[in-house]
């Protein structure tokens, strides 16, 4: 299944540096329509007013965490099918289990490399 790389991608992280890194890595794999949010609440607001084909989010943010954002997305009738990748330093089994239970599409542990990011995006969008 061909991946539409012109889709809007929302990246969510409270570290500006990480947003910049992910944006640049996405650009290198030809995803050029990238928007940023610095926490879950801002991301949810952008998701509800925009049209995004993929969300890539950190977990550990305040006031709304990545997990809470995921739960909100999955509970929203219009957004619930949006592919959602968690990129986080939270690497305990219970975290992965909680994310999966909340409906995460894939899970990347930090520090990650470009190949892993590309691979997970292809897997998620290939199944979308």
């Amino acid at each position: 299944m061909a991946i539409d790389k012109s889709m809007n991608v929302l990246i969510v992280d409270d570290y500006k540096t990480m947003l910049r890194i992910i944006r640049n890595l996405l650009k290198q794999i030809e995803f050029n329509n990238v928007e940023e949010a610095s926490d879950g609440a801002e991301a949810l607001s952008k998701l509800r007013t925009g049209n995004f084909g993929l969300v890539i989010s950190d977990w550990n943010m305040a006031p709304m965490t990545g997990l809470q954002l995921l739960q909100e997305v999955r509970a929203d009738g219009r957004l619930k099918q949006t592919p959602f990748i968690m990129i986080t330093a939270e690497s305990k089994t219970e975290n992965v289990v909680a994310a999966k239970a909340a409906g995460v599409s894939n899970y990347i542990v930090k520090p990650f490399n470009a190949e892993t990011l590309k691979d997970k995006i292809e897997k998620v969008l290939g199944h979308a």
Partner: protein
Amino acid sequence: MPDSFEGKDILLSERLAEIRARRPATEPEIFTEVVRAVLTAMSENLTVHDTALLLEVEELGRTIANAKIEIAALKVDDINGCHIPFATDELDAIVAHTASATDAILESCETLDIVAGTVSGEAADKLQEATTRIYEACSFQDITGQRITKVVGTLKTIEDKVARIIATFGPKTAGLPTPPPVELTREEELLNGPQLPQQAMGQSDIDKLMASFD
């Protein structure tokens, strides 16, 4: 109570009343003095076992008094007033400096990416490969930032513990109630931050776990 105890009992009561009048607050020295007074008053009626036990209690009181002196010598106020704030400021400075350095590296890397777009063939591929590696490496700033946040949290805990020691042994803050233990929500329990390398699950472990749900 047998008749033979009555005289000593009155004597002990008077002695305790005298101590209470002199120093109403409970102090380890007073505790020791009370035990000694009890021992003196009752020594003729105690078994060997009782005497040994009371001597141990007296020793415990002396140990507490010595600990108080040693803690005072440590200047615990300096720990909360000076050392911990200094350490947290230093850690904040590390985060700020690494963020600034990472931004500069990323800016240069983005310039290289633009240059890569103006060339073609093997040179373009090599340039992009190099910038990709730089982007990946720069994510250290996020990880170190989270680790430092955890260390700052630990320092705050130490600060609280020191404050409790001061409250217990220091006259100014004596008698403060102990705060109840902090109850974490399920969400908070899941926020552990980066694991140390030897404890962390790698991406392949995460992949296996994710696959196990399918």
